[in-house]
Structures are given as structure tokens and as C-alpha cells.
């Protein structure tokens, strides 16, 4: 079976102006070699701190940007082949929900118009059918048909996120990309929105790419996980395997830093000293070596390859030591 969405050695570099007028531009490696393959009905979570490239990966997956190197495949088709002729068609299959529901809905348009816009642009459907479609979608996300004629400011954050979900699903996409969909929401609302996402994923057999920094949410929803640090994938594999026993020191630190209510779920807190280095000037060798507790000489000179160890992919010279700790 072909994967709904597949990334192959994706890289996205940006040129950034140097400081000062005559300084040479520097290269920012926002995503530096990420591969994944996701089937319909499954969820891939992309985890990492700010600046690790997770949102850039979302932009690559939605074809908003073209990868500098590597290929993306939507149901087996490469959108950037043939000069991008296929992009308009393939974009209908990949839709996105953004983090901040206050910024992602046009305040001057009614909910109905917001929902119908993707259909107007991409498909040839009569106005009556569009309205029916929008109303069924409102119902699916737990809103009422009378909300069709209201403006976004009349809704709370949780309801706006539901509208954003409804809009993303209007075209019946195969892949849904959710970029931090619940991090702006309160706990009780977060649970409602997560449930809707899971319900609709099941109903429409969606491949869900879930970008988040909140590991307690990821643990709940993900089948596969990809942990990123400064543009590099450091650990990737089945969610259950990684949560049971993380092999990369960074994943361990992330898990340890996530506060848990239940003392049984609490891990020994691996203290990370220092701050995230600037992605403009990443440390040589392993990008994590400046904050790692297993660091040795080799880490600062040679970047560890992403290898299969302990039933998952991990990029660390000392994964064995990390697993045993």
C-alpha cells in the first residue's frame, strides 16, 4: 500500500543576511534530512522545542514551500516534478490546522464563507450543495448549523479551533497536518478538540501529522514519533517503543522535563543545562552535544548518523549508554 504522505531526505535551507552590510549571507538549515512515511488512519507526531524545524516540515508537507533537497510524495505522487503542475490537485489532499485560532480565521468573513472558500476555489459545486456540505461539517465538529452566519469573533478559542478543523476537512483531504492545534487551549477544551480530531481521523481515515511540544498530548494520540533538534531528526519510531524507553539523551530530557500529575508517570528529571543554541550557528558534530550528559570527544567532531538501534531510528553515538541509564 502506498503511504498517504511520504518524505524522503527532506531538507530546507534558508539564506539569512549576515550581521552588517558587507557580511556574507549565512545558511540556516531549518530542516536537515528528515524522512518519514505515514499511512492513512495513522498519526505521526513531530516533537521538539521552538526552532527545531517542526513547523518548516509542516510547510514542506503542505507544499507551501519547496524542499531545497529531497522529495515529498502525496499518495505516491511527487508534487514538485514536472515544474509543479500537479501541486494544485495534490494540495486538496493535504490540509492544515494552525496553532492560533485567533489568527487563522479571517475576522471579516462569516463562518460559512470561511468554510466554503476551499470548495469554491478547488471544486465545482453549486451554492446549495456547498452550504449543505458546510453545515454537515459544522455538525461533525460539534457546532450548530446556525453558526453558519456568524463571524469568528463571536466564538471562543475552542470553537474557533473547531471551525479551523472543519475548514481543513471541507475538501475531504487524505492528510491532515495539525501544527500545535491544542497548545493555545485550556485543558477541558483541549480534551474536546483532541476527541474531535480522533473521531474525524477514524471516520475519514486521515493520515494525521501532529506537531506538538506537549508530550502528554503526543503520548495520547501518536502512533509514530519523530523527535527533532535544531533541524535534525534525533529519534524516530513507534510511539510506544520510544515512550517506554527513549534512546536519545534529548528525548529522555524532553520526557523528564514534561511535568506529570501522576507520580508513577514521572521520570527522573534529566537536567538540561544551557539554552538551545542558535540554529544559525549550530554546534559542530552532534547538534545536541553542548547540552548532553553523555558527551564525549567524538560528539563534538562527528555527527552521529540516524541508525536503527533498539527497534527505532536514533542518532547518537552513545545510545547504548543512554538506554541503560
Amino acid at each position: 500500500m502506498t503511504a498517504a504522505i511520504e518524505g524522503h531526505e527532506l531538507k530546507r535551507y534558508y539564506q539569512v543576511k549576515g550581521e552588517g552590510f558587507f557580511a556574507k549571507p549565512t545558511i540556516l538549515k531549518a530542516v536537515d534530512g528528515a524522512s518519514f512515511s505515514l499511512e492513512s488512519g495513522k498519526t505521526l507526531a513531530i516533537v521538539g522545542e521552538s526552532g527545531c524545524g517542526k513547523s518548516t516540515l509542516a510547510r514542506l508537507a503542505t507544499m507551501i514551500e519547496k524542499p531545497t533537497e529531497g522529495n515529498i510524495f502525496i499518495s505516491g505522487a511527487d508534487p514538485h516534478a514536472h515544474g509543479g503542475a500537479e501541486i494544485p490537485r495534490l494540495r486538496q489532499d493535504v490540509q492544515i490546522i494552525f496553532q492560533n485560532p485567533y489568527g487563522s480565521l479571517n475576522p471579516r468573513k462569516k463562518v460559512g464563507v470561511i468554510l466554503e472558500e476551499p470548495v469554491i476555489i478547488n471544486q465545482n459545486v453549486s451554492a446549495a450543495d456547498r452550504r449543505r456540505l458546510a453545515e454537515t461539517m459544522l455538525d461533525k465538529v460539534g457546532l450548530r448549523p446556525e453558526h453558519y452566519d456568524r463571524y469568528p469573533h463571536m466564538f471562543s478559542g475552542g470553537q474557533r479551533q473547531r471551525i479551523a478543523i472543519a475548514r481543513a476537512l471541507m475538501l475531504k483531504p487524505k492528510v491532515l497536518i495539525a501544527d500545535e492545534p491544542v497548545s493555545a487551549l485550556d485543558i477541558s477544551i483541549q480534551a474536546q478538540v483532541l476527541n474531535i480530531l480522533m473521531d474525524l481521523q477514524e471516520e475519514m481515515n486521515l493520515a494525521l501529522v501532529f506537531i506538538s511540544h506537549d508530550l502528554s498530548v503526543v503520548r495520547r494520540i501518536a502512533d509514530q514519533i519523530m523527535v527533532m533538534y535544531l533541524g535534525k531528526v534525533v529519534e524516530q519510531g513507534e510511539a510506544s517503543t520510544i515512550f517506554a524507553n527513549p534512546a536519545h539523551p534529548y528525548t529522555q530530557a524532553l520526557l523528564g522535563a514534561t511535568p506529570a500529575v501522576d507520580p508513577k508517570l514521572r521520570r527522573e528529571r534529566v537536567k538540561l543545562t544551557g539554552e538551545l543554541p542558535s540554529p544559525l550557528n549550530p554546534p559542530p558534530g552532534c547538534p545536541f552535544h553542548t547540552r548532553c550528559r553523555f558527551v564525549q570527544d567524538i560528539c563534538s567532531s562527528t555527527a552521529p548518523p540516524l541508525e536503527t538501534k533498539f527497534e527505532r531510528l536514533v542518532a547518537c553515538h552513545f545510545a547504548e549508554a543512554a538506554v541503560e541509564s
Partner: protein
Amino acid sequence: MSLLEIRNLSVEFETVKGTFRAVDGVDLSIGENDILSIVGESGSGKSVSMLAVMGLLPWTANVTADKMEFEGRNLLTLSSKERRKIIGQDISMIFQEPMSSLNPCFTVGFQIGETLKEHLGLDRNARKKRAIELLDLVGIPAPEERLKAFPHQLSGGMSQRVMIAMAIACNPKLLVADEPTTALDVTIQAQIIDLLVNLQNEKGMALVLITHDMGVVAETAKRVVVMYAGQQVEQQEANGLFATPHHPYTHALLDALPERSLGLDRLPTIEGIVPGAGDRPDGCLFSPRCKYVQDDCRASVPPLENISDTTLRCFHPVDLEGQAT
């Protein structure tokens, strides 16, 4: 004797649509060396109640209380001049957005020095010495150079450390931290929380932690106050609260946490949304969303009562088996 004693604190705002009660009948008592956490969803009045204590609310706010005493001094009747002597010296506060709480026009050293000059009257050299000491204390590397840094040169975590340094500059007896880590990444969040708890321990100050993150609360607080729509609904020891929440809202809120429902198909949710200014129900404010609602809940507001070691605002609290009495 407790450090801060609040009885029946209410804050009202006059709006075009009538009076809005942002905080409604909050009782707090904070002892020396105590860590109290105030949790609640957005709009529950947790920040406003502490801003009222600090006297930082705009003039439109109408603050009333039966008692609001800090070290036996009545904060309500103090002149603003006398009050300013307490605020910043004996009580200080850290805010949510570190990036926007610092003044972008002045160096970090100047901003820390301001507090020291105002409250302790230190001369220039003493201020500099103390500022370096403080930056060192909050774990900023190369503090002497950092004094000359402007806020835009610091990362979010660093800015929050500077804010903490400013807040503890005069050795306060009470530190109020309003969502100190919400804007930060998890690994940095863990560092900041550790720093706050260590400082609290070393200096023996009392800490009020306002947050919506249940995990953070469970790992740090000794006592927890839960707020809903401006009202205090439950107060308990932290361990007790997470093991046996008695208020239906607390109960439902904890159930909605993703980590508590790992085995379940879907997350348990609280139906509906927090009532806004215009649609507050008669009777118990949580009654429209409560699973255990009965007729008396809709008729009158339950009083805040002490039941063994718990302060509760509920007619039918949840017992150990999760059943309403």
C-alpha cells in the same frame, strides 16, 4: 501567623453591559515558606485576584474584601505611597510574557538596578555588585557582560531569569509568579521551575504560583486553590487534591488530562464552555456543565465551606469513589 491573609476578595469591573465580577469571594491564606498554587482555566480570575493584592489593577476595577492583610497591615487602607514600599520589596511578581515585561529601551543591569535604588537606596557600585550577584544566583552565565545586554539580545528563558532576578532583588517575603513558564519550551520550563523552587527553599520566601498546567502544580505546590469563573471552588493539600478531588469541576478537569486516560479510547471531557460575562447562570456557576447537578445547585450559590481538610464550594461534593453525595 500567616503572611498574607485574604477573606472574601471580590473584584468588579464596570462595563457597558453592566457590572462584571471577575473575582468572586476568594479566601486565601499564605504562610511563610509556603508554596501555594492557583489553578484555573483562562478567565477564571486567578491573575486578577493576585493583581488585586499587588494593587496593579486599573482604576476601573472595584476591589472589595472583608480582609486583605499582609503581615498584619491592611492593604486596602494603605495609601498608595506606603503600598508601593511593600510592592517590589516584600511582595514581588513575575509575569507570563518575559519578552514583553522587560523594557526594550534599557539594559538588563539598569532595570535590575532600578529596584535596588528605589527600595534599598544602594549607590551605583553597590547596585552593580548586587546585580551581578543576582544574575549569578538565577543561573545566567557571564553575569558581568550580561548586565550590558538589552532584552532583545536574550532568549525567552534568559529574559525570564532576569525577571526573577529583579523580583528577588530585595529579598521579598512573598513572590507571585503568574504563569512564569507558559511561554517557554519544556526543557527551559523545567529549569525555571527548579530555579523558583530552589530560591523559595533557600530564601524561605512564600511562593504563589499561578498556572493552568496541572503537571507543574503537582510537582511543585504544597497547597492548591482551584478557581472557576471567578470563584474559588476548592482548596486542598496538593497530594490530596490530585488523589481525591472533591469538587466536580476539579474532578472533571483532572480526568480531562491526556495522561490520565492513556487506556481509554477517548478523553473524558467537560461539556460546554466557561460561562462568560453575560451568561452566568443563577446558582452554582458550574451547574450547567456538572455531571452531578441537582435542583438545589441551580437555585442558589453554594457557600465556601470547610469540610475536614478541604475548603469547598459545592452542595454535592464527589467522594472517594467518584460519586456525588
